[in-house]
């Protein structure tokens, strides 16, 4: 007797359809699972046996073979439990094969027959591509976010069996309605002073320009950074779906709805490479870079991150995807983030201002060796943030609130869309001639900066993109003016590696 039940597994952030083939034949009684199951998957044997018996089905006293096809991909985790259990019930005659036709199953089973949720329900349901799917009660809300299949939520195998046999209606468990936690949005209005940094945040959000803030402790870098996600417009449906799948694959419940707001992820500087870019030896999991997809990845104390961890960011920042390759598999995960970083200029924190740092030379050199030039080069905007004056903190006027800035950001992004990109930072170098022509005064300025060595050839295009964003924010049409290019140059400070740039 043979049956095939559709199910799925997650690799990285993508679901992969898996056909669970169950064969009941002659031989010594027992259950064998083949098709590259890992340890947690092979344990399904014992869980399924107890669960099926708990559901009131007599365990067949013959040889059961379960094949997980395609057998070349490694199967990890317990999400295939439910499909295996159903397959066993079908082959042993407890359920008619016709009654499971076209239904996909995903979930873990307990020894008492309970059906439990598994991470990644969104990509899993998507990958099964069935008209009807059966999941655990806790997974139902997330599963329904996928267009198409009818979602059935069951609490245990017993009630699943009755429902499939038509002896009872599908159970109508109350769906867990966890409204998304109302995160208090940090408003830009609460930032006093720091006119330039506010401006940099706005330009960064509008053009998706990576931003590096350098300043002494207490200058407000972290406070500024935490406000930038609020400046980004809502995600469109396609990106929202990608982001939701990523978060689902990382084991988060989406709590009632696609993730519509850009995420703000701020991993601590002790983060490992796997936790930042994703990976792992057995199961590939999305890293912070993917979890921040469509939103902001904030790296506070940039120079404290491991140098190899930081260098691993370079390729994803350029391509917008993370490619994780292991001996047995590889995985591609979306990772288009706005990178915002903050760092002290040196261990004592004062090196920014010429003549103020008192760090020993060696300590400075060690500190700066942690940052590679190519990574620093990815930051279109690099500003020094000084501690605000006390008057500014106490009596200064409050600035614009986030909503006012968002309105300008949205307009600027609309102008970028007309150029065929989401934001100006994604414009290709070759298309700048077309989209960002310059007045003679502006190009003369850039030529001079290049000649004087104040600007590298690599930096040229980046300055131009930033200038374009500045122009967009001001609703400026026509060629870029010298003022906009000067401002873009001003916002791109060379990161001084070590003291004594002059001598």
């Amino acid at each position, binding site marked *: 007797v043979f049956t095939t039940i559709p199910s799925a597994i997650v690799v990285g952030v993508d679901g992969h359809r898996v056909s669970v083939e169950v064969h009941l034949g002659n031989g010594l009684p027992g259950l064998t699972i083949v098709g590259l199951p890992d340890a947690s998957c092979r344990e399904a044997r014992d869980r399924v046996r107890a669960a099926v018996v708990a559901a009131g089905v007599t365990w067949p006293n013959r040889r059961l073979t379960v094949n997980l096809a395609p057998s070349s991909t490694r199967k990890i985790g317990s999400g295939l439990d439910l499909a295996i259990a159903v397959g066993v019930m079908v082959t042993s005659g407890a359920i008619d094969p016709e009654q499971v036709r076209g239904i996909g199953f995903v979930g873990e089973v307990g020894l008492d027959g309970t059906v439990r949720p598994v991470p990644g329900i969104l990509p899993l349901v998507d990958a099964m591509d069935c008209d009807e799917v059966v999941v655990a009660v806790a997974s139902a809300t997330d599963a329904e976010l996928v267009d198409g299949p009818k979602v059935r939520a069951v609490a245990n195998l017993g009630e699943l069996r009755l429902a499939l046999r038509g002896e009872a209606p599908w159970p109508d468990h109350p769906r867990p309605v966890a409204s998304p936690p109302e995160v208090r949005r940090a408003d830009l209005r609460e930032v006093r002073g720091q006119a*330039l940094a506010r401006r940099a945040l706005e330009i960064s959000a509008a053009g998706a320009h990576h931003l590096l803030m350098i300043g002494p402790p207490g200058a407000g870098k972290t406070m500024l950074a935490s406000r930038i996600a609020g400046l980004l417009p809502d995600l469109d449906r396609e990106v929202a779906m990608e982001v939701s799948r990523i978060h689902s694959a990382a084991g988060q419940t989406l709590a009632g709805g696609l993730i519509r707001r850009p995420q703000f992820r701020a991993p601590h500087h002790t983060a490992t490479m796997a936790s930042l870019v994703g990976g792992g030896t057995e199961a590939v999991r999305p890293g912070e870079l993917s979890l921040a997809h469509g939103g902001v990845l904030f790296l506070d104390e940039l120079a404290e991150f491991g140098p190899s961890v930081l260098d691993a960011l370079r390729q994803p920042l350029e391509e917008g995807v993370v490619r994780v390759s292991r001996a047995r598999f590889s995985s591609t995960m979306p990772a288009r983030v706005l990178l915002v970083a903050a760092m002290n200029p040196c261990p004592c924190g004062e090196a920014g201002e010429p*003549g103020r740092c008192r760090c020993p030379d060696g300590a400075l050199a060690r500190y700066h060796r942690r940052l590679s030039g190519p990574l620093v080069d990815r930051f279109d905007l690099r*500003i020094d943030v000084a501690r605000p004056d006390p008057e*500014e903190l106490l009596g200064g006027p409050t600035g614009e609130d986030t909503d006012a800035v968002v309105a300008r950001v949205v307009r600027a992004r609309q102008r970028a869309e007309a150029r065929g990109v989401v934001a100006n930072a994604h414009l290709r170098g070759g298309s700048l001639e077309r989209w960002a022509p310059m007045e003679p005064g502006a190009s003369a300025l850039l030529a001079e900066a290049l000649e004087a060595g104040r600007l590298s050839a690599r930096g040229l295009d980046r300055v131009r993109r930033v200038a374009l964003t500045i122009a967009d924010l001001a609703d400026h049409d026509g060629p870029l003016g010298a003022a906009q290019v000067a401002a873009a140059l*001003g916002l791109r400070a060379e*990161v001084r590696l070590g*003291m004594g740039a002059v001598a």
Partner: protein
Amino acid sequence: MTAPVNDRTDRACLVAFACLDGIGPATLAALVEHGAVSDAWERLESGRASSVPALAAVGRRVDGTETLEGLTAHARQLDPLTVLERHDDHGIDVLIDGDPAFPSRLAGDPSPIPLLFASGRLAAAEQVLVAIVGTRNATRLGCDTAGELALALARRGIGVVSGLALGIDGAAHRAMIEVQGGVADVGPPVGVVAAGLDLTYPRRHQGLQRQVGEQGLLLSEVPLGVAPSRWRFPARNRVIAALARAVIVVESPSSGGSMLTAGEALARDVPVLAVPGHPATPNAAGPLDLIADGAVALRDVEDVLVAIGRGGQALAVPDLAGPGPLDATPGPLGRAVLEALGVRPRTLGQLVTGLDRTLEEVASELVALESAGLVARSGGWFEATAHGARPLP
């Protein structure tokens, strides 16, 4: 002046002694005074160091026999004559106090300077020299000032001695290197370093150190191949102070190497001049302390000439360093920017807030001032150059 050491073996042994950890100028001087340096070396090699009074003192200083055993072990790895030949091969002059070529200002110095290694024109040490010293972490204005002073002195035939460190020291010498070629009778650069002359510390100044050696003179108390230990730097400063007719401190925090150099100068009755700065800047603390203690406040190079007894000479040469500012006359905003930068460096953000202008306006003005040579950018900070800090017409 001590008795000259003429025997080649004795000279070689003295150089070999200088290679050993824990043996400084005082011990070397004691060895020379005691005479028979090669005999002391033999005793050290054969493990009888404690029978040499000067070496026994080293053992007592740093607790006992272990040190002497370490010295002996180290000494056994060295062959004095090979060490000396190595210096000859590199074209390094080995100068021992008492040699005819030994710099006269260093002979018989209160803190003994028994042994020097030199590369370059020895005659430079006999010329009138002025020391320009200051902090490694200098501002652009400080470096410009050091460079201008060095240049102004060099054009009057006065040499400049400094420590080839980052910041002020390097800026002074760098300015001189540029003027050396072609012009006759300019003062030579003299660099006193704390490492062996085949090493460079800081590494960034490798090129500069080589040029100073080619156009002037490099001096060190340390044999070839010996890396600088911490105590070598203040020791180096006393050589600078002893060589100079006057010591100029351009920028320094209230403690640090430059202040030690000033102290060494005072101990030798060498006049100290300090470039006053704004009290709000940390690098002005050192010079202001010195002025409060009676140092001369340096206004221009004439003050230096007066201090070394050469005042009142006609100025045959232009006073400015490098090309003057382009024919830029800053507008009102430019003047406001320069005024704000006159006190201390500012970030772009501080300028935008302080002047209450837009980013575009301030950034455009800064670009203009920068190309006019009035403002320099250092990372995200802007500083006035020496031209920009001068009162505008």
